[in-house]
């Protein structure tokens, strides 16, 4: 039993905006004060003068799996700094943009985050993702299952077999122990494998009777029909390319009311292209998102400094390699997806990087509904998640932001509309874009708020000179009812849960699946699905 007393509580889902309240915790859940039998026996934390909010919920981050580990392995230079020693409680390890699994858990927790979603899991390599997630201590985690270039699915769509496609998607979510349907450059990775470099929304997928538009709409419908708590989670076509805003806007229009999450919108909001230089199209893209209430988006903010880019969008990483000349790792996954890794330095004096920073900020400030706007860096693509406090500072402090802006190259400043935006986020809005809103978009009813019955995932911060300092290290973090961080230091470790869905599927699909595996996969059908052993702390989130 634990009481966090007299803190200023920010709990937007329950309409609490900085009022002084007590929070009581029992058996891992938030309970009402009058339900606590003997308060004298409770551990008491005096939060007078401190800020209390739900634990952070990250909706899009690359923290575990083959691609992430390839980034670690390829870049020893990334780990030499930022390495911590083991101390009896914590394990040693570290790394700047691709930290070791343990350090990933500790750093998130120290910042007050308690749930993180791994954004791209190739089903064939799902065991790897789960093995790593089991070595990320403390955090609750879920993983998005990649489907946008799956050949079995493309076959179903080509033959207009909608029910079969739905059963397959449900089966694949369960077989991979995934949480949501992930779509990355739909059809574009498959096309790249066949030699076509760029794929737009209505281009054909070579060898298949389907287009990216059809893949997206089908998977959005399937997500709804299965009652999935989240998604589909969409990385649009032509990501990262000048002039892609038109594709993004057409995609939003095509969705026509279907619930969808747009991943790292910053990388999809570019104007220019062809002979014209890159410029911001954040205003146009934000207008489309503002007008379509079925759409949520995370930003994928760029922060300055060295990082490691990684995505299932193989062709995008190849382009980055060609542009930058940096080392390039590629991993095409049979029948399913691709994947690439390229280290990158987002340099402040580089016009493109500076413009990317501006476009992210412009989106944050132009998207009107914080419940549909989420803070991410697409870790580690835009930069490491440890930069979140600095981003919050920019959003809450106009002065600080304009200082940043004025330090950037003139060309970047003049090709975006950031200078004209005066908005400052309130603390309550920050709580929404980092936990309350993300939990809601993920369909996690017990997270992102402090109402009775919620998971006791709580972060307490001490006001500081500025917002970055406040959010960098939580004074206290409670995870599942236990105190795991004090004064910004991990003081106890325990495993987190793996969040999964079990939408159910028709067994009639099995014979054709088995045949497909026998013909095309190098792993037998009977050895494919992820066994229970890989999700020892599984928490099933119910489908609607």
């Amino acid at each position, binding site marked *: 039993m634990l009481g966090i007393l007299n803190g200023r509580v920010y709990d937007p889902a329950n309409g609490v905006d900085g009022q002084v309240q007590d929070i009581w915790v029992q058996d891992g859940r938030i309970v009402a004060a009058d339900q606590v039998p003997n308060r004298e026996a409770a551990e008491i934390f005096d939060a007078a003068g401190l800020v209390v909010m739900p634990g952070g919920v990250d909706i899009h981050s690359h923290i*575990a799996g083959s691609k*992430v*580990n390839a980034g*670690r*392995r*390829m*870049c*020893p230079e990334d*780990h030499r700094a930022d*390495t*911590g*020693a*083991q101390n*009896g*409680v914590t*394990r*040693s*390890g*570290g*790394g700047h943009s691709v*930290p*070791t*699994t*343990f350090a990933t858990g500790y750093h998130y927790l120290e910042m007050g985050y308690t749930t993180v979603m791994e954004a791209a899991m190739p089903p*064939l*390599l799902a*065991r*790897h993702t789960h*093995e*790593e997630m089991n*070595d990320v201590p403390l955090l609750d985690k879920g993983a998005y299952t990649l489907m946008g270039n799956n050949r079995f699915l493309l076959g179903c769509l080509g033959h207009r077999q909608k029910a079969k496609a739905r059963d397959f998607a449900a089966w694949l979510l369960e077989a991979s122990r995934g949480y949501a349907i992930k779509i990355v450059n739909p059809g574009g990775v498959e096309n790249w*494998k066949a*030699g076509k470099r760029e794929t737009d929304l209505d281009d054909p997928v070579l060898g298949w009777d389907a287009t990216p538009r059809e893949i997206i709409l089908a998977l959005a419908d399937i997500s709804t029909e299965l009652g999935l708590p989240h998604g589909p989670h969409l990385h649009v076509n032509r990501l990262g390319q000048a002039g892609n805003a038109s594709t993004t806007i057409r995609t939003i229009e095509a969705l026509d009311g279907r619930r969808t999450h747009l991943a790292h919108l910053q990388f999809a909001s570019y104007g220019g292209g062809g002979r014209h230089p890159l410029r911001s199209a954040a205003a146009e893209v934000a207008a489309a998102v503002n007008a379509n209430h079925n759409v949520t988006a995370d930003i994928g903010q760029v922060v300055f400094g060295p990082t490691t880019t990684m995505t299932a969008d193989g062709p995008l990483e190849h382009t980055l*390699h*060609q542009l930058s000349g*940096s*080392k*390039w*790792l*590629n*991993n*095409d*996954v*049979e*029948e399913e997806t691709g994947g690439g*890794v*390229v280290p990158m330095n987002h340099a402040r004096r580089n016009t493109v990087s500076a413009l990317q920073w501006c476009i992210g900020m412009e989106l944050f400030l132009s998207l009107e509904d914080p419940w549909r706007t989420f803070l991410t860096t697409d870790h580690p693509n835009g930069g490491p998640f440890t930069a979140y406090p600095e981003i919050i500072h920019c959003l809450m402090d106009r002065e600080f932001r304009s200082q940043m802006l004025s330090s950037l190259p003139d060309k970047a400043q003049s090709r975006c509309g950031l200078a004209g935006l005066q908005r400052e986020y309130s603390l309550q809005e920050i709580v929404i874009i980092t936990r309350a809103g993300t939990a809601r978009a993920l369909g996690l009813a017990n997270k992102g708020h402090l109402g009775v019955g919620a998971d006791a995932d709580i972060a307490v911060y001490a006001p500081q000179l500025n917002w970055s300092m406040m959010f960098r290290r939580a004074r206290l973090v409670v995870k599942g009812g236990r*105190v*795991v961080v004090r004064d910004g230091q991990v003081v*106890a*470790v*325990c495993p987190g849960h793996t969040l999964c869905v079990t939408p159910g599927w028709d067994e009639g699909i099995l014979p054709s699946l088995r045949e497909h595996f026998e013909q*095309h*996969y*190098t*792993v*037998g059908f*009977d*050895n494919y699905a992820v066994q229970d*052993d890989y999700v020892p702390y599984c928490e099933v989130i119910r489908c609607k």
Partner: protein
Amino acid sequence: MTRTVEHVVCPTCGCLCDDLVVEVDGTRVTQARRACPNGRTFFKSYDPTPRLPRVHGREVEWNEAIAEAARMLTQARSPLIYGLSSTATEAQRCAVELADRLGAILDTTSSLCHGPAVLAMQSVGLPGCTLGEIRSNADLVIFWGCNPAVSHPRHFARYSLPPANRRSRVAVVVDVRPTATSDIADLFLQVEPGSDLEILTALRALVHARPLSARAIGGVPLANWEDLAGRMKSCRMGVVFAGVGLTMSQGRDLNLGELFSLVAELNDCTRFAAMPMRGHGNVAGADQVLTWQSGYPFAVNYGRGFPRYGPGEFSAVDVLAHGEADAALIIASDPLAHLPSSSAVHLREIPVVAIDPRESLTTRIAQVVLPTACYGLDAAGTYYRMDGVPIRLRPVISSARPTDEQALQQLLDSVVRVSAGAVPTC
């Protein structure tokens, strides 16, 4: 009475064939259908009879052996933990934690086979893919310095040269001598030893259409290399499998770096992949686990309380040759048989704990021997295929021995108790 188990995974080599049909009579495997001779021997020779651990050659109870091993390791100033390529990731995870808690030096057999490929990947990257992409799409398959016909006998049929589309692909072998693999190749380029780096550099130049004046390179006429470069550029999808003939010959990581650069450049005009032909069943898994836990794939020193990476400095060969390790924990490996003699000599002089399902030269000299179950035979666990695909091994016979994971977990518990007191958990 015999039982039949289907969809069995063979843990012997990096192919991890997962289609075996195994027949079991009591506690012994009598048949391993679909396995190659290497796999068959592995399955049929295994004797799962419980054996007592040994301390200084004397048979003792399990707990006594664990206690003695923990004592030896905690007393050492700079213990070495080595091996790991033929054990499951579940055990590898414990081994890394043990290294972390002990402040040990940790290395895998990678440093003796494909370590140079890792170094090359760290300098120039690595364009790759899973084996199924190759099976379905490759029309040019190059085996460079490897002999899968002997080392990975089912690689051709399952991945690289499947009979169904054998005619539509060209198989090329580059090696210093004729092998069983070159016998089945469409094109064999026999090169002079030590010439790989020069050849690869020339191929890069030819792919970029730079004229070369040499008449022959590596003992092979220039025209043949021009022909190969042409095939590489015009194929639909090509792949190079790189063996220890490339990683362990003159040039080492430079050879691999040149190869990976060549392959990356080929992706400007077509689709091309490279893949190190990993030998031991789960050496790829060891790379992965060490990387996600420490940041580095091998040659890691935890002596200062945090991981430091030092191939050529913290590799087992070097640590032993320089007399820097004062105790060793050997897991599922036989370094006494494989290490160069300068390193093996030192291993004979320090206290050694060996965890292994089988007897070996190393278990014969070890002060503590912990006989464990064998993953894929009488224990379940995870192995990573040479292309990084993780597969769960299923046990075919019931186990009477502890697994490597259990042995390491017990060691870890004892070590933590001896050195630090209880670890607070919640």
